[in-house]
Structures are given as C-alpha cells and as structure tokens.
C-alpha cells in the first residue's frame, strides 16, 4: 500500500484539475471547496511521508514504461523537501487565488491548469530517473503556458511566446543530454551516480553543459533568464506560486540532481566544471540584483530578485561542500516562502489599491498594515537580516564558500545583500514614512471574506519566514531537514 503513496501524491491534483475544468462558473463555490480540500489532503499525505522518511523509510513506485526505462517516483528526503514546500504553498496560494479572482469569469481553466502545474511540480520533485524528471519537467512547461497567457492581452501572449521559446529549447537540450548519457551508461537513476569512468572527458563535459544549460533556463541562470521578467504579465497567483517557486525551483532542483545524483560531486570537480558553474551563479546573483534595482514596476523588481535569489541555490550546489549544500537546500525552501510572501503582497496591493509601481507605494503601510508588515518581513528576509529565514541561508552559503576556499563567495553574498537592501528598503521607506497621495480612498484591509482570503495567506507565510529563522534548529524545520539530507547522502 505504501508503495502507491508516491504515485497517489503526484497524481492527486489531477482530480481537482478535472473537477475544476468540468464545473461551470456558477458552481464556483464547489470548485473552491474541492481545491482547498485536495490541497489539505495532499498536505496530510506529505506529512505522513515526511515522518516515514525521517525514520528512514523511503517509499518508491516504479513501472517499466519503455524497454530499459523505468518510471520511478521516489519519496526520498530531498524530494520531500521540495514536495513539502510545494504542498504547503499550494494550499496557501489556492486560498490567495480564490480571494484574488473573486468570482471572475473563465476561472475553471485557471484552476484546472493550476492543479496540473502542481501535479507536474510534485512529479519533478519525486522523479527517480532522468527520464521521469523530463516527463514532468515538460508537463510543467505545458501546464504553465495557459496560465501565462491567461489574460489574453498582447503582453501576456508575448510573454507566453517568449516563455515557450526559452523553456522548450531548454528542455530539448536537457533531453539531448540525458539520452546521450543513457546511451553511454544505460539507465540513470537518482539513487547513486552511475559509473562514468572510461567516458571521454570531452563527452562528459558536453553532456553536463547540455543538462545544466537546459535546466538553467527554468532556473533563470544568465544568459537564459530573459523569460522570467516577461512572464510577470501573468496574474499574481501564477507569479507567486509558479514563477517564484515551482518553475524556477524545478530548474534549480534538476541542477542539484544532475550535480549530486547523476554526475556525482567527484566527477563534477574532476572535470573542473564546479567552479565555472559557481561563478556563473555568482554573476547571476549580482546581475539580477542590479537589474532589480532599475525596475519601477514592483512585480518586475521582484522577478529580477528571483533571478538573483534562485542562483543562491545553484551557487551552494556547485561549491561542493557540506555547508554549501546545506545552504543550497535550505534556501530552496526559504527563498520559496519569502518570495511567495512578497508576490502575494504585491498582488494584494495591485488588486485592492491599484499599486503597481514603486512610486505608487507612498503611505501604503498605513492603508494596508498587515500586508505591508508581511511584505517587510519578506524583504528583510531577502536582504538576509537575522532572525529571518534568509539569514540562515546566507550564513550557511557563506560558511560553505569559506570551506571550499572560495572567498569571492563572501563578496558576492555581501554585494548581493547590499543591493537587496538598496532595492527593498526604499519600498519600505515609501510605504511607511511618506504620506499617501491626495485623494486615495481608504481601504479596509480585513473586511469581508474575500479580503481576508487575500491578506491572511501572505501574513501566514510572512510569519513562516520568521519562524523558519527563529526555530531553525527545531526538528522538521527546513534547516534540520537540509542537515538530515546532507548527512544521509550528500556529505561524502
């Protein structure tokens, strides 16, 4: 029975997806109820698996879908890190999306594809082979596209086009890489790196570049980051869950898998590929922050901030060291909850007060105190101020840099923190210290169910950002889980 759990967990969102597609708009209440209850069920299942995995029980489901290729879903500890994040944020974002759209038209389609995206993201997390990973990775692209073009205006269609060109080309490169690799060494499972000795270095290097380059598109590594700021044309819940969490994380997570479970850290450092990748990640961190500084549109600013922050994960993964990998894993979760908080707040501000650009923010702190408080926590987390979650990530990444004798990492982290402060603090300054513009109507932030569904999710994730930092050493906190993963296999 327990073997079916990974399968059940991955394909669970298919049920609310079908129900959402099928229910007409006038039965929207039932759609909302279905979506929320399935998100809760999924969270429960994840909790069960999480406890099992802590005891060392790894569940797995497999069947041979093509000769020589198994379809494997495995709930190992690193998969559960990502799954827990996505299951928790799925619930939060579902509530937020219901509040955000209210009873607008054409939401059946939105919630249907939204569920399919969650299915794909969970599949990405639990994939046990390179091919299985590809299946879900591609499904994620397909299911996200209708959400990007959801509004149907010129800007969204353009964003959709750019998104597809980048991501489909990226996954084609990844596919070429993994097929090439499996033609050399047979099937590649994520349990232990295959024996790569005897394969020419040049070939291995090319395969590595194809895989990392392909996955780097979704992870928004420069120079493949161009789609992410464009995709901000999508509605806020999409930006929040998908672009801040699911899609970019799928890329970053894939890179982790490639480095640690496909090539293995010895091979990667042997080939001399770790340092260039770390440097590319470092460059992305700084570049993203610089570009964020120049954006006036809040969502665009957050998008460039994502470009920068996701590369922390890649930086940690490519530094090859125990502290660095802990930093990378913990940031996978921390960046998710911090960024989703920021995006949900941005969505609320735009939805309720029409605030879209930085200059509109004047006095918003007084009008929407809860939202702005959550936003502030998220922003402080991004900068890396203790005791927020962001501080923990940066601390471990910094230690990792020192441990791997890469002192430049400290400079990158410090520089990025400074830039983060430069592009987030003015927002807070405007919101709290400048007077609101003349004629702005007062907003009652927490009046009515719709408003509460919009505001409270962000407040909850904001508190989580604080909690993940304050209680970092508690069992089952993101940090302790990352340490557990590192102890179990990534610390060889």
């Amino acid at each position, binding site marked *: 029975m327990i073997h079916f759990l990974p399968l059940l967990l991955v394909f669970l969102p298919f049920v609310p997806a079908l129900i959402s597609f099928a229910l007409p708009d006038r039965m929207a209440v039932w759609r909302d109820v279905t979506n929320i209850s399935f998100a809760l069920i999924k969270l429960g299942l994840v909790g069960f698996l999480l406890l099992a995995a802590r005891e060392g029980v790894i569940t797995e489901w497999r069947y041979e*879908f093509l*000769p020589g290729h198994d379809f494997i879903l495995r709930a190992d500890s690193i998969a559960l890190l990502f799954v827990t994040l996505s299951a928790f944020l799925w619930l939060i974002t579902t509530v937020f999306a219901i509040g955000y759209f209210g009873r607008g038209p054409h939401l059946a389609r939105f919630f249907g594809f939204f569920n399919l995206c969650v299915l794909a993201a969970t599949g990405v997390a639990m994939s046990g082979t390179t091919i299985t990973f590809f299946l879900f990775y591609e499904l994620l692209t397909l299911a996200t596209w209708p959400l990007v073009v959801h509004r*149907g205006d010129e800007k969204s269609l353009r964003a959709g086009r750019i998104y*597809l060109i980048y991501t489909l080309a990226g996954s084609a490169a990844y596919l070429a890489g993994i097929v090439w690799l499996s033609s050399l060494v047979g099937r590649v499972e994520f349990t232990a790196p295959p024996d790569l000795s005897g394969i020419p270095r040049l070939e291995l290097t090319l395969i590595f570049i194809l895989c990392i380059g392909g996955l780097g598109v979704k992870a928004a590594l420069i120079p493949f980051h161009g789609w992410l700021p464009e995709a901000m044309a999508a509605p806020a819940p999409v930006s929040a869950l998908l672009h801040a969490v699911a899609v970019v994380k799928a890329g970053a997570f894939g890179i982790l898998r490639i480095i640690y479970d496909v090539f293995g850290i010895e091979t990667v450092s042997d080939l001399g590929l770790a340092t260039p990748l770390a440097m590319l990640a470092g460059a992305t961190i700084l570049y993203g922050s610089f570009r964020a500084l120049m954006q006036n549109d809040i969502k665009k600013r957050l998008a460039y901030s994502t470009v920068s922050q996701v590369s922390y994960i890649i930086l940690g993964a490519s530094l090859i060291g125990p502290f660095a990998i802990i930093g990378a894993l913990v940031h996978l979760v921390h960046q998710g909850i911090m960024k989703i908080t920021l995006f949900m707040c941005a969505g609320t501000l735009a939805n309720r007060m029409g605030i879209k650009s930085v200059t509109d923010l004047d006095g918003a702190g007084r009008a929407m105190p809860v939202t702005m408080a959550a936003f502030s926590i998220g922003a402080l987390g991004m900068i890396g101020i203790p005791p927020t979650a962001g501080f923990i990530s940066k601390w471990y990444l910094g230690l990792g840099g020192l441990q791997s004798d890469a002192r430049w990492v400290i400079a990158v982290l410090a520089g990025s923190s400074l830039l983060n402060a430069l592009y987030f603090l003015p927002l807070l300054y405007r919101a709290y210290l400048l007077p609101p513009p003349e004629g702005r109507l007062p907003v009652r932030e927490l009046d009515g169910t719709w408003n509460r569904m919009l505001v409270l999710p962000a407040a909850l994730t904001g508190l989580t950002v604080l909690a993940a930092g304050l209680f970092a050493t508690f069992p089952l906190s993101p940090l302790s889980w990352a340490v557990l993963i590192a102890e179990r296999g990534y610390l060889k």
Partner: protein
Amino acid sequence: MSPLDLLVAVPLALMIAALLLGTWVRWLLLTAIPVMAGLTVWLLLLPEGSAHVVGDWNLPLGVQLRADGVAQLMVGAMAACASIVGLYALHEFAPGPDRSETAHGYAFWPLFYLLWGGANAGFLSTDLFNLYIALEMVSLAAVAMAAMGSLRAALRYFVIALVGSLAYLLGVALLFANYATVDVTLLAEMARPDLATKTALAVMTAGLLIKAAVFPLHGWLPPAHAAAPAPASALLSAIVVKVGFVILLRLWFEAFPAIVAPAGLEVLGWLGALAVLYGSVQAIRQDSLKALVAYSTVAQIGYLLLAFPLVATAAGSGGAWAGMTIHAIAHMLAKAAMFLAAGLMLKAVNGHRLKDLHGLARAMPLTVAAFGLAAVSLMGLPPSAGFIAKFLLLEAAVEQGAVFAAAVLIVGGLMAAVYLFNPLAWTFAGSDTPVVEATAPLRTAAPLALALLAVSLGFAGQAMVDVAASATSARLPAAVAVDVR
C-alpha cells in the same frame, strides 16, 4: 474465415451497401463500428505472424494476408480513426431533414468504406500486386474525397497519384517477369541484386514516395488536404499517406533487405530530414489553419523516412523500428483529431485564418483542448504516443551516433511547437467570449476522443513496443533480426 479476410471484405461489402442504401448511412455506420472493432480485437489476439492465404490458392499464385505487428497497430489505429471520423461525418454527410440525399452525402459513404477496406488491404497484404490494388482503392477514394473541397486540387492530386501508381505498377511487372512471383516473403528468399530488381525497386519507391507525399514529391498534398471537408481531410492526412509508407516498409525491409544499398537508405533518410525541416518552415509561414495542419503532415511524414537508415542499422534493440511504427499511428490519431478540431473551430467562426480563432478557447474549450492535446502528441512532448515515438527514435539515433538525425528530431519538435502554439495562442487572445453556433456534443467529442487516445497511448509505450517488435522478429533482414533477438 479469418479476420484477415473480413477486415478487407466487410468494408467493401459496406461500400456496396452504402451505394444501395444511401439514406441508411447512420445504421450502416452503427453496424460497421462494432463489427470492425470486433474484427480488430480478433486481429490483435491472433498469434504472432499469423497468415492466411485468400481463397485457398497457395503461394506463389495466391494472395497472402498476414498479421504482423505493423499491420496490427496500423489496422487498430485505422479502426479507431475511421470509427470516430465516421461518427463526426454523420452530421456533415447525413441525409437532409426530409430524408433526401445530398450529392456529397451520397458520394462520401461509399468512398469512406472503400478507403477503409483499401487501407486494411494495404496494411495486411504481402502481395505486391495486391498492394497495388489496395493503393489504387485508397487513391481513388482519396482523390474523390479531395474533389469535394476543390476540384482543381483534386485534379492535380489525381494526375500525380496516377503517375505514382503507374511507376509502382511498372516495378511490379518487372519483378513478376523476373521472379514469377510478387509475394513479399518469397521475393525475400529469391532476391538477386541484378539491374532489373534494382530498377524495379527504384521506380516502385519513387511511386510510393509520391503517394506518401514525401518531400520533394509532396506538392499535391497541402492544397488537396487543406481544401477538403474536415472529415475527408482527417482521413486523407491520417490514413492515405500511411498506406504508401507501409508498402515502402514491405519493400525495403521485407522483400529486398538483402539488396538495398546503405546509400539508398541514406537518401531516404535525407529526404525525411528535408521533409521535416521544409514542412515545418512552411507550416510556420501559413496564415490559414488548415494549410498549416496540412504542411504539418508533410513534416511528420518526414520522421517516418528519417527512421529508415536508423532501422536498417539498428544495433542492440528494435527501438528504431518500434519508434517508426508508433510514430505512424501516433500521427494517424493526432492528425485526425487536429483536422476534426480545426474543422469545428473554423466552421464556428466561419473563417479560415489563424486570427479568426481569436478568443475561441473561451467559446469552445473542449474543441480547443482537443486541438491542444493533439498538438502535444505531434510536437512529441510527453505524455503522448508522439513522445514515445520521438524518444525511441532519438535514442536510436544517439546510440548509432547519427548526430544529424538526432538534431533533426529535436529541432523538428521545436519547430512543431512554434507552428502549433501559434493557433493555440490565438484561441487565448482577448478577453471577450466570441459568440459561436453551438456544436453537437457528438461532434465535439470526436476530436477529443482521438486526441485523448493519442495522449493516453503515451502510457502504453511498453505494450506498443511489444506489438511492433513482434513484427521485427518475424522478418527483419537477417543481419538486423539477430540483433533484435
């Protein structure tokens, strides 16, 4: 009696019945579907490599029908396609409300059954002359169906198809003069690499390339397929071109594997690669939806040819063979779905250009979904039968170091994404819901069922590979068959 006979005979009987009982098309179709479905299941359950000699005339004089993996898969996909397209066509080609017949309605149904029987004969027969007859039956039906849309395109199609048939027939005559038999299995034992045989193979191949619309002999296809009524386009693009392809397989891998030169296979592979690239570029450039889908057929046929050199040098596994066969049926289902969906959308908006689709995803979500799912399979993205095929071919290409073929497979998939996401993007454009005429539920269901079949076969990869491979062990060229085992 054997299902092999019946699979050909029943549609032909239905053709005659349709000629005589024009106004009873609905009942005929509702009889045909379960009967053909039953026969197809029977065929799939036959032991591996079952053969049946028609009318008890033994070889070399008689005509043999045989159920190998290719035939089983093709006949099965054909039955699914024809049944669903038939149900869709009931509306378009049914007798009028006063039970009077329309000219098209009268003409369509006999042609429909002729095509069904002819295609089944083409998939099952191992006799080159019998295959010629099958080819002619299919071509006749196809030309007449194309004529329902555009007489001009049909005329052009007719002339070119005639050239193709004659070329093929010439080859058959040459072979008969040389070997006194035209049975594929017997020819395989006797084949000598002399000039006459090579000439015969060359002219027959040329003829079949015309029939299968392989670049650069594809010119007749886009106008004919784009102009025909939707159900006819679906049958033309999904089935007719595949008959030429299957005969090409019989010829190259079954009758003459011993004498085909690697160079010849390379040429076919190159033609396939060019077809993929050229067809995709043309599809990207089209402004009319049906022309886009028609050029996509040119591109997709290219993959079948691209696989030829991969199949011939297959090392280690029958992956390339399975990939090629699965691609043929994946394209059959997905392309039929796409033409039917396109037909519904264009009829609803009363236009033919991509921009006429503006906002349709809100007005006809199920039809757009069918189009989208079919597109997923055509692009070779998971989960779909198209992906399984593309993946197997890609794997074979990489294993053999055929870098160019691998690159074409990947680039072709990306180009397909470009031309297929374009119409889909139009259906999402805007925020208003266009007012369109409601479509009958059965007609909405037809393309959706085909598309769902194409997608869900993506979960049955292993089973399809097994069926396709049961063919290879029966009769691939010796050098290859060893590897397969």
